[in-house]
């Protein structure tokens, strides 16, 4: 069963924090709020959270120093950094400080939600599965083979990685930028619908001769692979 996720938002803009808390609540995620770096550090050290959402510029202790100090204290809660600085080198410094993901402002809430959910999931399950399964679709990470209903499906190497990432986060929304980051390892904005075309090709390969559809487009957010027939367990 899915336990409710609990996160900490460290953000000094009270209006933005209130908006985030409301939006997360609607998505079924409980959140606490700290409005400066010191109290954020205190709360993150004292309580168990699934994910920390940390603004980079905070009063009393900036976001990066908060993360560094947390890691020094042995707290390994996944951290997503929010920042108005969104350039290549800012991301690198953010991740180097111990952050797990970096989202430049302004962002779509759907993007933030998808990333927080993936981070929260990552925490509990070390990624050791050799075979991913969604419904009757099976992906073997060792032999690099994909089968559906026992029939082998031939994929290009990139299509394989795309499917691998989708299935690793099965049941969760992954956004286009997450796909570009994790499958192609690029962080820029692809502008056109490059990712959509890749996904639709993959979809035609895994769904053309099979039923039911597994790979859904989530409007305004991204994609999700899920077996609709299996009840939430």
């Amino acid at each position, binding site marked *: 069963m899915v336990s409710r996720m609990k996160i900490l938002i460290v953000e000094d803009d009270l209006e933005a924090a209130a908006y985030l808390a409301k939006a997360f609540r609607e998505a079924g995620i409980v959140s606490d709020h700290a409005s400066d770096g010191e109290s954020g550090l205190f709360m993150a050290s004292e309580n168990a959270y699934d994910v920390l959402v940390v603004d980079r510029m905070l009063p009393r202790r900036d976001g990066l120093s908060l993360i560094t100090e947390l890691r020094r204290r042995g707290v390994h809660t996944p951290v997503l950094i929010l920042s108005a600085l969104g350039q290549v080198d800012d991301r690198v410094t953010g991740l180097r400080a111990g952050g797990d993901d970096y989202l430049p402002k*302004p962002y779509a809430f759907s993007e933030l939600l998808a990333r927080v959910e993936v981070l929260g999931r990552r925490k509990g399950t070390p990624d050791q599965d050799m075979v991913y399964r969604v419904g009757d679709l099976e992906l073997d990470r060792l032999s690099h083979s994909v089968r559906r209903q026992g029939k082998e499906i031939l994929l290009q190497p990139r299509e394989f990685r795309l499917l691998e990432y989708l299935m690793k986060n099965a049941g969760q929304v992954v956004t286009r930028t997450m796909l570009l980051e994790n499958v192609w390892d*690029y962080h*820029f*904005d692809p502008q*056109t619908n*490059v990712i959509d075309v890749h996904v639709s*090709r993959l979809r035609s390969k895994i769904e053309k001769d099979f039923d039911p559809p597994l790979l859904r487009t989530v409007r*305004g957010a991204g994609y999700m692979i899920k077996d609709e027939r299996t009840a939430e367990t």
Partner: protein
Amino acid sequence: MSKFGVLFRTTAVRLSALYLVLFSLCAVFLVFYVTGMSERLLQQQTREAIAVEAAQIEGIYERAGVNGLLRSLERRARQPGANLYVIAGPSGDILAGNVAGLEPGLLDGEGWTSEPFRYQRFTDENRADNHVALAQVLVLDNGLRILVGRDLQEPEKFRVLVRQALVVALGIMGLGALVIWFAIGRNALRRIDRMSEASTKIMGGDLSQRLPASGSGDEFDRLSESLNAMLGRIEKLNEGLKQVSDNIAHDLKTPLTRLRNKAEAALASKEGGNQNGALEEIIGESDQLIRTFNALLMISRVEAGSAVAEMSEVDLSGIVADCVELYQPVAEESALRLEADIQPKVVISGNRELIGQALGNLIDNGIKYAEGAENPLIRVDMKESRGSVVLTVADHGPGVPANMRGEVVKRFVRLDESRTKPGTGLGLSLVGAVVEMHHGSLDLSATDPDGKGLTVRMVFPAGAN
């Protein structure tokens, strides 16, 4: 502050003054050392000469007795430049000699007079004259005392002469140094004044001003040159900034107006469904605006060189292959062929993200503008030759007229025909900034002989360093 005060505060003059003080100290030391040494040497020579003569006199006394001694001394005393000779009785009364008077008690003991002493000497006019001498006293077995000495006036004169010569020479040198330093300091000051004048103008906002250079290639010229290079860079950045702010005002107002209009229309419409659609459109518009802002910021950051810190050895072949693979399906959707000829294992010093984005922009442009072209081919070529890596993206679309090729690299510049296509007008600007950051060059040309098609050629320095 007086002109002289300013001059005195210049580094040249201050250093000169310091040198002058050190130089004077050395010179004074030198004067005393040289004269002291020569005095000691001369005194030693004098002592040796006296000792030799005293021994001779003792020998004469032993061979020829008192009479022989007296004769010998008389003869010696008459020679020009003679030494001093005194024969005195046991009580110290002078019996004979060429000395008019001595300091009392000088003849009491045998041996060297411990220090140079004063004595009176007969001058040619038979007047007693005060002199200084060094002498040895002998006591003979019959109680007679004999003083053999030498006047020290000559060595003393020599010493004074040497000292005077040294002092005069050093004085002239010091004076000369002062004059030269003064001239240098004034010259330096005048040039610095000109530099300050120019920089005051620059600070006043005239960034086209440059610092003067005399053309002699000295350190001031080198300073001027590097400062001028810096000014050139600042001017360029400033122009870029000005262009950006102008363009922001102009090109961002349009989408903002559109955004506002849509919001207004949504507010006015009564039907809920219509409103939702309008809101979605508004979000789309905002995203496009954010995209434009991000691209602008990125270009500025790349141009300012702040991403240079994240340069490393990158596999350019891999980046190009990745990009081609990323855009391949989109090209095919648009009924275009995206072909690539990539030389493997080419490594350059660069930033993977930025090169990837630049190349992505070019391929994206190709797909956007060459859609529906007669020859539906986009070619990406990468080859290393003679120290540089050439990366080209060529399409057979409508191309860019020759007179606009320099323009389209500027921010927000779009051809009129392409205004209907989506885009920010910043894609090529970013490419230009990225290429420049990698110390490369960017060149636009036509692909086909008839002037159609666009070929963008980027040249990067090869190798990783």
